């Protein structure tokens, strides 16, 4: 689904950094360095971005 607003474990806001993380990793940058640059140092926050799958795109057309 959409990237969760906050880290499940510590509550840091992570959603705002997902777009640039995704774009930079797609361009071939090392995810480890990108996460450090984005200021996510704890592994709880890092897994939020690493493990995100944007399933929202699949259900997007099915509106009420």
């Amino acid at each position, binding site marked *: 689904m959409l990237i969760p607003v906050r880290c499940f474990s*510590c*509550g*840091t806001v992570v959603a*705002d*950094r997902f*777009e640039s993380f995704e774009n930079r990793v797609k361009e071939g940058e090392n995810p480890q360095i990108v996460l450090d640059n984005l200021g996510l140092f704890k592994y709880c926050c890092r897994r939020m971005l690493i493990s995100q799958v944007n399933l929202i795109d699949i259900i997007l057309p099915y509106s009420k």
Partner: protein
Amino acid sequence: MDVRQLPAANHQMLKFIVTGTFPAFMNSIRRIILGSVPTIAIDEVIMVENNTAMFDEYIAHRLGLIPLNSDIDDLNFMDACDVCDGVGCNSCTVTLTLTQETDQTSGAIIYSRELLGSDHRIYPVVDEVPIMKMDKDQRLILEAIARFGTGKEHAKWQPVGSIGYQYMPIISIRPGHTFTKDVADSCPRNVFEYDENNQSLNLRNLLDCNLCMECVHSSEEDSISVEGDSSQIIFMLESTGALPVENIVTTASDLLIDGLQSFIEGFQLALEKADNDPSSMRKISSFERIGIND
């Protein structure tokens, strides 16, 4: 008690050492920060129209988690509002609106910056949080009501992300002892610097040590000792952005002082009562005696 600030990774983080204290005291500050320092967050959402792919509740939950700038002091607590008696009015709530519509040709992503507040001082501190993704020909119109709250009620009102403290590491290396480079490399925080010539260890980043004891296990017995000094505490916290990180600590300290003040007043009242009416104290002690015998 001596407090020294340490360099932190960014302006939302704060790290300091307190000397001459004890863990229970620092923990009370930590718990007051988590549970009692008030911030503003969206608490109620009135959906005017939503034909996006997700339910109203999902969107409302996401809105609640977005940190709003809470660095103001003229908004009442809704429960204690003397204007409306806790119903909700302009002196205790702030309304934010969101209106987004997509046409027949393209979709859109709604970001937190599109939330417009009735009070210009209350706005999402992070602009880039995606609230919802929309496909063609969808509409999302809503009104969100934000108010002051505390972390006791819901974690969205917590002013901090991560917060914690640790004991000051005391690392002693036996003088004259020779070490292999493996010992220095075993430290996950790179606390040691290896001196090739003397085959000795030097301390480089003492404050990075997290007392994991890896160096003790990988070296000869009694050559390194790592201990935590509980009278010196390294405290660190990370603000969500709702409040400036320094304000969080000062507000928590004020709340602790207020709490202790009202405790002293209540306690002295109880003592006076017991002096004047000894039976009031006896009632409590007899009650306790029954409890123990049972």
